[in-house]
């Protein structure tokens, strides 16, 4: 009964999504106020029905209803409750439903926080979001229905993939999808603006907080995924340039470019058509990312051939969304105009360079991800593009971006002066140079790449302090430093914090790349090995039993100069239902280093191959990502967006009159 209810709710959501888009599009074109006003309730209703559908699927998982095919293949009665809930998005069908849920959550958000936008704009934005939703719900209902029953029902489910039985995997997909789907708002605003032919500062101001919020979720989602790979895959790596990771990284790169170009469009009215294009591309790459990961095309391009309906539907959906919006862009973009001019040395020009760099970076990831697939699909041979390619490309691309990150926020709009920038940044340059020279020595060994990383991280961080110092110094009046700091907008604090997060991230990446050490050793109980100045003593392996697995649990005592540091318990698990082995690493996390131990395999009755890592500053990588996301959240909550929204109707009217 419950699955049928879910399916019915989904069908009703489809009807409402269709109504939402038709009412919005036609209403806005004809100027029918009633029609346009109806988009809001339609969107809210759609949210309610999608939520009901999602709740129904979740209930089927909680009740272990193995008559539902999707539940039977992604859950098991021995699974603890939280993994049964996470099982909802453990496979293709449920992920698609989660995607739709996220889209309707964002749509609901737009209906709540758009009261001060012109009705016509809101109607068009909701209409475009409704169209996207229609496409996806159709996709679910016709090719990926999670509510299909299974007869005869199996006595128990096939279990959730053991790799996904992990707390990180419970929240990683929802975060990631919030990010992916969040870019649909920037996309919808862009398409709505193209339809109306009015792209001005107000448009940029409305879409900015939404875009930044989506970017925050995506940042956290990617960081969680990377952290999960680090401790769950047992290899000690934190980024593999795997197509699955690249799929989420491309929208992030484009989204980062979009955030920066939106800033220019809002403040200076420039880059308009470029901003619109970026908004379209960011969402297109989000769609591509979803499908790359979820359609099975990565496991085998030939998966498309075995289930052609799904593949063809996906390609058609991608073509309509991307092709349609690009056609609209080509048709309407010439009307948008270029906006204000600027000198070769100005904040605009630096943000332009930022955009060029991030676009090139996204392009290089796209090439490295899709080219092998295209070659394979056309039967021209098999190739792979590994980390060396991406690393060769990213260092030279990102180094100038980091340099500009230190200069850009201090440069004036329209026209900046080199001597002025030089004198304001001389202390930051000195601090960065000292960091580059001294820190590698402090770590024990000087290396050119480490010095470069420290130079750039030091530069970004020091430039941030210069910016804060100038704010404190420049504000006129007798008020104290604290009140002056309080007058700095949240948007500025957010930008500073996010850029500081980048510096932290760069420190983490540089130091872990430069100084990490690892060893694979055969150990008998009592054997010791030394890595990174720590002594690891292997005390043997004993058997333990978990809720859905049996495991050999090793015990390793870590000491430094004879003083005990910690005990580590890495495991080698066998998940019973799927009979799948899994390596569960044991990690001692620290501010300046991680100690990471994983079990290889037993080579005799008592001896094991053990992998030991010493990873300096590795946690700074994720710390930096969190700071970036926090900075973004701070910026998105700036009062200006709420105030501006209230004043918007008049501004919009004057802009239109012009």
């Amino acid at each position, binding site marked *: 009964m419950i699955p049928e209810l879910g399916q019915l709710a989904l069908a009703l959501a489809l009807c409402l999504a269709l109504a939402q888009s038709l009412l919005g599009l036609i209403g806005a074109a004809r100027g029918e106020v009633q029609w346009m006003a109806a988009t809001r309730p339609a969107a809210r209703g759609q949210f309610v029905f999608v939520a009901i559908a999602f709740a129904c699927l979740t209930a089927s998982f909680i009740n272990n209803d193995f008559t539902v095919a999707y539940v039977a293949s992604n859950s098991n009665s021995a699974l603890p409750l939280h993994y049964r809930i996470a099982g909802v998005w453990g496979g293709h069908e449920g992920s698609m439903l989660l995607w739709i849920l996220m889209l309707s959550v964002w749509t609901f958000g737009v209906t709540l926080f758009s009261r001060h936008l012109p009705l016509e704009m809101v109607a068009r934005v909701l209409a475009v979001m409704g169209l996207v939703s229609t496409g996806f719900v159709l996709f679910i209902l016709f090719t990926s229905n999670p509510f299909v029953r299974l007869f005869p029902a199996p006595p128990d489910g096939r279990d959730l993939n053991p790799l996904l039985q992990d707390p990180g995997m419970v929240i990683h997909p929802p975060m990631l999808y919030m990010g992916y789907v969040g870019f649909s708002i920037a996309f919808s605003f862009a398409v709505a603006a193209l339809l109306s032919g009015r792209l001005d500062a107000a448009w940029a101001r409305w879409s900015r907080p939404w875009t930044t919020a989506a970017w925050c979720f995506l940042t956290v989602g990617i960081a969680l995924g990377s952290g999960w790979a680090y401790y769950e895959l047992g290899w000690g790596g934190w980024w593999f340039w795997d197509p699955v990771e690249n799929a989420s990284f491309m929208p992030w790169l484009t989204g980062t470019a979009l955030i920066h170009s939106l800033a220019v469009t809002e403040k200076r009215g420039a880059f308009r058509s470029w901003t619109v294009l970026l908004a379209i591309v960011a969402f297109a790459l989000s769609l591509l990312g979803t499908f790359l990961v979820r359609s099975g095309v990565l496991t085998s391009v030939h998966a498309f051939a075995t289930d052609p309906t799904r593949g063809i539907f996906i390609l058609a959906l991608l073509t309509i969304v991307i092709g349609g919006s690009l056609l609209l862009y080509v048709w309407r973009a010439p009307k948008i105009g270029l906006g204000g001019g600027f000198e070769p040395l100005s904040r605009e020009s630096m943000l*332009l360079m930022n955009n*060029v*760099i991030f676009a090139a970076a996204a392009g290089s990831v796209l*090439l490295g991800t899709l080219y092998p697939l295209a070659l394979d699909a056309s039967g021209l041979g*098999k190739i792979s593009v590994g980390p060396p*390619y991406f690393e060769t490309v990213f260092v030279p691309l990102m180094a100038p971006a980091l340099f500009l990150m230190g200069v850009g926020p201090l440069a004036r709009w329209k026209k900046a002066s080199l001597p002025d920038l030089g004198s304001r940044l001389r202390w930051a340059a000195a601090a960065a140079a000292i960091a580059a020279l001294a820190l590698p020595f402090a770590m024990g060994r000087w290396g050119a790449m480490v010095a470069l990383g420290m130079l750039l991280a030091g530069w970004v961080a020091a430039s941030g302090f210069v910016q804060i110092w100038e704010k404190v110094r420049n504000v006129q009046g007798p008020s104290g430093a604290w009140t002056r700091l309080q007058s700095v907008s949240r948007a500025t604090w957010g930008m500073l914090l996010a850029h500081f997060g980048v510096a932290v991230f760069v420190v983490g990446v540089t130091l872990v790349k430069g100084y990490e050490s690892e060893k694979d050793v055969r150990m008998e109980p009592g054997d010791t090995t030394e890595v990174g100045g720590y002594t690891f003593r292997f005390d043997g392996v004993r058997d333990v039993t978990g809720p859905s697995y049996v495991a050999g649990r090793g015990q390793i005592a870590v000491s430094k100069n004879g003083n005990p540091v910690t005990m580590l318990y890495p495991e080698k698990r066998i998940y019973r239902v799927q009979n799948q082995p899994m390596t569960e690493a044991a990690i001692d996390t620290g501010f300046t280093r991680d100690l990471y131990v994983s079990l290889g395999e037993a080579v005799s009755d008592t001896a094991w*191959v053990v992998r030991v890592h010493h990873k300096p500053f590795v946690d700074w990588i994720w710390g930096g990502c969190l700071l970036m996301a926090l900075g973004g959240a701070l910026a998105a909550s700036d009062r200006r967006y709420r105030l501006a929204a209230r004043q918007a109707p008049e501004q919009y009217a004057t802009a239109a009159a012009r």
Partner: protein
Amino acid sequence: MIVFGLAVLSAATAFVLAAFRENLVFFFTPTQVEAKEVPQGRAFRIGGMVVPGSVKRQADGVTVEFVVTDTAKNVPVVYKGILPDLFKEGKGVVTQGKLGGDGVFYASEVLAKHDENYMPPAAADAIKQAQSINQKATHTLVESK
């Protein structure tokens, strides 16, 4: 300004494409390795099935030898390190490394995906190719008789 931006963009593109060409890793089947169709001194990937009974551990406990086959031809592989969880005799494997002058493939990476029944597509293809060639060969034999 636009010209400058375009210049930077094209320089970046040229650089990316050069890096791409340099770091491509090609895939070969054991049959191709045997026929010396593989690059010398450059890393490439081979795939196939781990021959049952071929996995041997050297005295240090971390160096492993095994044989990869596409059912037609075999390639001996040496790898130092921990094998992935799903590496098993009789199962599919893809490995990356360089071919030594002694005909042994020195692997720097061994990939076996996380799924019990999963055969890396490249490995499955290698076996399929070799088998279809075998079949053709038997067909021609039969016909010539």
